[in-house]
């Protein structure tokens, strides 16, 4: 067996990625079934949400238990602005920025403390918003009749695709940058990183802001996609914990892990929900515990071990 050089394997990777993107772009043209496209929308939504959670949780090592706050803030802002007559893209951008503002509000005080304060703070923030939004906006938010008349699924699908690619690309660019090196150094050993000139607070805040921004964008896309939902829905804890589980299952701190985790999770959930109804929660809870206990690197960790073992055999 001839060994491939790094350049060759890199070229193969790029071709594979381009091919995958081409297939995803062609999908709505080929498949006319709305239910399949809807499933693909959910896959892309969770690819974005999990990848955005991973920017903070995986690269900077800070556990965010309130990502739903950013998703919900993005969704609420975008929905309100868009339905009030703004163009879609400024509405999405505003949604992302509101999520960033919210993130800094909790991050600036919480990151000055070490330990679990950030995890508790984010969880509290998202739950407060969940209850407050439920009380203040108890009515369902539906698209007006004239929008419903022209509703098309394909543009929604493409928006989710673009945001997923954007989020993944941003994560990739980040970990291959000076900033990303500093962020990972802080994750590994904060004292040593600071002794070398890396400001831990600043780097955590950058990771948090990016994570929140893409979480907010994803929420905005959801607001553009969904015909009618209670505004409270987007602040629900399941957005946080589903994304978190996907990252753990796929492989935290990697680019590919959250993607694999999201695809696996959404498709498996679909299959289980068809057959087991609400029982799928038990399946995922069990799966999550097993992964954390026995496969701390997730699927990507397993893959890394296999490829290492194969390399040794050669």
């Amino acid at each position: 067996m001839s060994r491939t050089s790094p350049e060759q394997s890199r070229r193969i990777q790029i071709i594979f990625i381009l091919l995958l993107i081409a297939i995803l772009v062609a999908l709505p043209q080929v498949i006319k079934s709305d239910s399949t496209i809807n499933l693909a929308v959910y896959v892309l939504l969770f690819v974005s949400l999990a990848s955005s959670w991973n920017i903070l949780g995986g690269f900077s090592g800070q556990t965010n238990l309130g990502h739903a706050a950013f998703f919900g803030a993005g969704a609420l802002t975008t929905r309100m602005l868009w339905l009030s007559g703004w163009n879609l893209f400024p509405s999405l951008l505003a949604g992302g920025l509101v999520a960033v503002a919210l993130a800094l509000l909790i991050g600036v005080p919480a990151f000055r403390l070490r330990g679990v304060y950030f995890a508790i703070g984010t969880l509290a923030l998202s739950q407060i918003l969940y209850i407050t939004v439920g009380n203040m906006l108890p009515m369902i938010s539906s698209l007006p009749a004239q929008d419903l008349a022209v509703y098309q699924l394909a543009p929604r699908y493409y928006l989710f695709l673009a945001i997923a690619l954007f989020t993944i690309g941003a994560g990739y660019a980040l970990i291959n940058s000076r900033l990303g090196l500093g962020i990972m150094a802080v994750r590994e050993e904060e004292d040593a990183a600071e002794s070398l000139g890396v400001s831990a607070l600043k780097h955590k805040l950058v990771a948090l802001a990016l994570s929140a921004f893409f979480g907010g964008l994803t929420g905005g896309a959801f607001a553009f996609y969904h015909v009618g939902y209670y505004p409270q829905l987007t602040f629900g804890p399941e957005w946080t914990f589903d994304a978190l589980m996907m990252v753990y299952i796929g492989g935290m701190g990697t680019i590919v892990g959250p993607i694999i985790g999201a695809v696996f999770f959404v498709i498996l959930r679909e299959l289980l929900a068809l057959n087991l109804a609400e029982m799928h929660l038990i399946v995922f809870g069990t799966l999550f515990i097993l992964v954390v206990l026995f496969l701390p690197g997730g699927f990507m960790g397993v893959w890394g071990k296999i490829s290492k073992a194969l390399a040794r055999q050669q």
Partner: protein
Amino acid sequence: MPFLQVEGLCKSFGGLKAVNNVTFDVAEGQIIGLIGPNGSGKTTTLNLLTGFLKPTAGAVTFKGENIIGRPRSQMCPKGIARTFQIVKPFLGLTALENVMVGKVYGRDSAKSLKAAAEESREALTRVGLADKARMLAKDLTLMQRKRLELARALAAKPQLLLLDELMAGLNPKEADDACALIQQIRQSKITILMVEHIVKAICALSDRIVVLNMGEKIAEGTPDEIICNPQVIDVYLGRAHA
């Protein structure tokens, strides 16, 4: 103007005076040894100089600038780097990436990530870890981790390097290697303040030695003066040594 000036440095933890009114100067290009029994305040002094602890009182002037109260992450870009008594490598990063952090964030930082990688490879070669560049730090031995920590600090191009017990936990052969490394660093005109327990090594390397006991400076001088100083022999070296 001295290169580093420490004046009346004090640090109390509650009622305990860990460092009490310590004063000394370091001239550029010198190697200063900091010795004393366990708990005499050596590491605390290092932590005060690098911003890891805030002093209760006192002044530290580096190149004429007061550096007390500055965030610790600003010390390295100013030219002060340190190692830790218990090494703190970035375990999940490769040896090369470990060193690159120093290159990218230290003084006079590399222009691009690519340049940083190249220069970091040289730094690894200098400490004898050239073939370990792609290994994760968690797969390195203690000696290799110490070398890595040194390479990482050197990559930040410090003018003042603080070494906290670099030789602790090393066998005699490894300690000799570490001595040779420090001699080599001296060639590049980096000023060194080192905390060490191996008296033979510190006497061979240091230009001057500062002795601490119970948080206070009890002696300062050349290695020859220090090993004959009766007070130092009493509290630290012991009669057998003299």
